[in-house]
């Protein structure tokens, strides 16, 4: 039971837990105390002095330790000056006056000071309309200033902090929220104060500038228009934008976002997305999103998107009508029957995948998930259950991250795991190479490539690590495929699952296995019954393949060859990918921003997303296309509203039982309070009024006991004596279909590069930053060379989705560039 404290704020009796700050206590009681530098997600600084209030505490007689009474009431001793509400903790009997004459004068004077140097930029400032300084000046300001304005401080106005964020030094009020966010929340102190006094300014000195994937969040919490995004610069005024609740589709965290849209002349009168803002969901992403989610939405509006169905006639893909395309696709699939194969990517929604599965089942065909991370069947058994919230983890809990670069693969999970470690949780990172999580880890375990499974199996035998795992109050295990292929990650998943099952950490909240999938809805695919195919090339041979939201030909030349050797290829896609270029029928799909649906996050939480913009050209939603093909085959597939498809899904798939669109749209009050009236307090994050999502039940928590999966014996591929072993790793900013359309991220995507050990480089006569030619998978590519002394010698890290054909560890030859 938390100890409670009662105090009086503006005459109102307020009871809050001990340790609450006065400003938070007031907010909980519905009383607004204006703040600039304070943010509820960070430790207070007391820098801006905007929250000055009159504080009185009951006088205690030093001799007796009893309160001094006056007329039967405790005598209140008022502090001689105003005190900041953000740095003062509540105490019993405290009296706070926020609107007394003295407090009001203090608030007015602080605003008067701040406005002496703040430029008259409101008409040209992007923050206008959602600006805490504007709002608080109107509510608490003096109305007139006693200062002369001739001596306003002038500073640089349009300073780029990297390509993504602009800094306006004149508007900065030196509150330090951005500096503190980077240091305390993001753990990447790449912003700092330079100079002192009136010359204090924000600088960044990293390479590239503002080297943090959470940089966009500083523009949300900046109380003025000093930090703004280059993406939204002069886009529109906040009151001109419409909001649509949605989800980020880039990684399995499933951050809640809001798309702000507007009908524009610049885009020919179309309704377009102007920006992505975070939407509060304290259990998933709190009030943050990473830069990939914030800036990589442009693929939905790219001019390169498919506009109409295509059919191959005389060797060329030519425009066709929907009737023709669907008829042809259905005919081909009907003829193939059991020899059809449905290949789906994790970018599709639950509804799309459900219809595809029903189609596959109706045909008797295989339903294959296109992924390089295996083990999802284990996650469905012992994944996370309802009541899970990473924010609850702390001292006594253990988090294990195996074969995964969480920073690049699921940034917000990296952030929350780091925060859990800061709160005292034991973090164990098991990887063949150094990653950005190591700094925050209690234990770092390295293994030689090939020994990943054996190392994980041996963890329980180790002294401290074994104890941390066995005796953990809660145990969470994240795994992926860092340096591994599908088989490798499946093996890792099995080893991790064994750890959880053997130590009894499953079937309750905050315990279980989490697959860090490459896409937003791989978890949904696993739950619905899709399974990856270890030898996809062999599986495709001679089949009629229906591919949706996957580009195997673009990723792997061997799969391109396999598709060429396959029977018919039907592709349902957003863009004319390499795979689509091999197809006989190309069906243009609608982007997820143009329709509603649901994703299942890696934590097994089902969340809804809503349409933001109208349908592009003649595209149809993925599930509609599948349903119309299915109907031509005599199958009863739902082509109506996604809610109807979801209802069928919940009726058939046990894990989803009891869910509905209405349940997914339920909301609860969350802390901190954000929302347009409270944006000075929590930032410009949008309030979540459209749904917090619902967790799936884990099979284990339903009483079923999971069977211990068999772990593959032996080791994975090892580096050979005289050859380099290329191992695939994931990069946050890559040339994937959903990222490369964002021009702003071009510099961060960079050129394809391999990372080798400095000794290896020396042997080959290569230097960092030089160009080299590599031979991989029978293809030659030009790459940049990067050095890292923490990776094992004999290994070369090759990023996925950068145009280099790496899908599994394979031998690599390196030579100087031509």
């Amino acid at each position, binding site marked *: 039971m938390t100890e409670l404290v009662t105090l009086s704020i503006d005459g109102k009796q307020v009871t809050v837990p001990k340790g609450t700050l006065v400003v938070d206590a007031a907010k909980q009681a519905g009383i607004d105390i204006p703040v600039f530098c304070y943010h509820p997600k960070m430790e207070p600084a007391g820098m801006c002095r905007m929250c000055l209030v009159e504080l009185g505490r009951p006088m205690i007689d030093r001799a007796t330790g009893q309160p001094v009474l006056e007329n039967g009431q405790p005598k209140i001793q008022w502090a001689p000056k105003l005190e900041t509400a953000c740095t003062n903790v509540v105490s019993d009997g405290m009296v706070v006056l926020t609107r007394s004459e003295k407090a009001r004068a203090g608030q007015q004077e602080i605003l008067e000071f701040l406005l002496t140097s703040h430029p008259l930029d409101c*008409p*040209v400032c992007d923050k206008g309309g959602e600006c805490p300084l504007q709002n608080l000046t109107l509510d608490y300001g003096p109305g007139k200033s006693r200062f002369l304005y001739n001596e306003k401080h002038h500073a640089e106005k349009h300073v780029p902090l990297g390509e993504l964020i602009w800094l306006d030094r004149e508007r900065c009020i030196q509150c330090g929220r951005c500096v503190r966010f980077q240091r305390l929340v993001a753990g990447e102190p790449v912003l700092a104060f330079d100079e002192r006094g009136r010359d204090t300014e924000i600088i960044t000195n990293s390479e590239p500038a503002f080297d943090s994937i959470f940089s966009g969040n500083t523009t949300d919490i900046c109380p003025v228009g000093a930090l703004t995004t280059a993406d939204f610069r002069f886009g529109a005024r906040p009151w001109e934008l419409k909001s649509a609740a949605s989800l980020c589709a880039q990684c399995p965290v499933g951050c809640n976002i809001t798309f702000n849209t507007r009908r524009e002349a*610049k885009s020919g009168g179309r309704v377009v997305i102007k920006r992505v803002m975070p939407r509060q969901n304290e259990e998933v992403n709190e009030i943050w999103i990473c830069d990939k989610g914030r800036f990589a939405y442009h693929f939905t509006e790219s001019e390169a998107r498919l506009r109409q169905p295509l059919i191959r006639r005389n060797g060329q893909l030519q425009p066709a009508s929907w009737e023709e395309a669907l008829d042809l696709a259905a005919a081909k699939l009907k003829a193939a029957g059991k020899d059809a194969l449905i290949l789906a990517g994790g970018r599709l929604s639950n509804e799309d995948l459900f219809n595809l599965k029903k189609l596959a089942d109706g045909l008797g065909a295989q339903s294959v998930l296109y992924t390089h991370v295996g083990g999802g069947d284990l996650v469905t058994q012992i994944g996370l259950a309802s009541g899970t919230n990473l924010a609850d983890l702390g001292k006594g809990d253990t988090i294990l991250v195996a074969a995964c670069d969480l920073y690049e693969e699921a940034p917000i999970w990296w952030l929350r795991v780091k925060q859990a470690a800061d709160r005292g949780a034991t973090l164990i990172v098991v990887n063949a190479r150094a990653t950005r999580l190591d700094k925050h880890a209690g234990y770092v375990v390295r293994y030689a490539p090939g020994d990943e499974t054996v190392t994980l199996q041996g963890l329980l035998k180790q002294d401290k690590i074994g104890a941390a795992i066995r005796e953990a109050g809660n145990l969470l295990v994240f795994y992926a495929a860092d340096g591994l292929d599908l088989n490798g990650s499946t093996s890792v998943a099995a080893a991790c699952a064994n750890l959880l099952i053997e130590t009894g950490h499953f079937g309750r909240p905050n315990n279980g296995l989490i697959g860090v999938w490459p896409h937003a809805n791989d978890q949904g695919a696993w739950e619905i019954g899709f399974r990856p195919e270890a030898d996809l090339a062999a599986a495709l041979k001679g089949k009629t393949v229906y591919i949706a939201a996957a580009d195997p030909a673009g990723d792997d030349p061997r799969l391109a060859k396999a598709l060429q050797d396959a029977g018919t290829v039907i592709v349902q896609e957003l863009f004319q990918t390499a795979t689509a270029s091999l197809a006989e029928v190309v069906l243009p799909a609608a982007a997820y921003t143009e329709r509603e649906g649901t994703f299942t996050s890696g934590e097994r939480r089902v969340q809804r997303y809503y349409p933001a913009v109208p349908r592009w050209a003649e595209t149809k939603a993925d599930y509609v296309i599948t349903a119309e093909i299915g109907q031509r085959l005599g199958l009863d597939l739902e082509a109506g509203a996604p809610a109807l498809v979801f209802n069928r899904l919940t009726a058939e798939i046990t894990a989803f039982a009891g869910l509905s669109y209405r349940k997914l749209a339920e909301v609860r009050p969350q802390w901190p309070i954000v929302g347009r009236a409270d944006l000075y307090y929590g930032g410009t994050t949008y309030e979540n009024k459209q749904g917090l999502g619902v967790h799936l039940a884990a099979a284990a928590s339903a009483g079923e006991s999971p069977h211990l999966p068999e772990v593959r014996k032996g080791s994975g591929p090892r580096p050979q004596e005289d050859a380099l072993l290329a191992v695939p790793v994931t990069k946050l900013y890559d040339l994937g279909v959903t990222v490369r359309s964002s021009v702003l991220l071009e510099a961060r995507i960079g050129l394809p590069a391999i990372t080798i050990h400095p000794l290896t480089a020396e042997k080959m006569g290569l230097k960092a930053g030089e160009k080299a030619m590599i031979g991989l998978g029978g293809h030659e590519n030009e790459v940049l060379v990067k050095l890292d002394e923490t990776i094992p010698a004999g290994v070369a890290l090759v990023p996925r989705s950068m145009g280099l054909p790496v899908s599994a560890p394979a031998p690599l030859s390196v030579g100087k560039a031509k």
Partner: protein
Amino acid sequence: MRVVEPVVELARGLATTLRMIFGEKPVTVQYPEEKRPVRPRFRGRHVLKRYDNGLEKCIGCALCAAACPADAIFVEASENTDEARYSPGDRYASTYEINMLRCIFCGFCEDACPTEAIVLGDNYELSFTSRREAIYPKEMLIEPVPPGGQPTPQKTPPGVFTRSVPEMKDSQD
């Protein structure tokens, strides 16, 4: 006697009529050959003003659109560079449209404008034959380049036109 009185009244009335017809000057303004000058502060058709050097005063801030009670104004802003400068400062209106059918000529946009760019001028002779024609784009609203000024976009030296909102000489003005 009774015959003369009504005739006398009639004659008096007629006299007034005849006096008006042949005597007094007519007050009818022979519009459109003659036009009565408008009063000061008359609110007519909008004009987007320029500075004397030809740069547009409008900085695309959309405060006029926000103030408009009839939602008649649509503004889209874009970035200025010294290579192609439309207005002083960083920001200018790349799209500026007023729907004359929605506009109630209240002048709130003129009051809201921080740079005195949009003003309601004297022209009241507006006609259009379709709803689309009633949407006046920026080309119709922007005033011609004053003598001595350059047309926009201009190429300007860096560091000169850095202020979007001009300095207020007299805050009461």
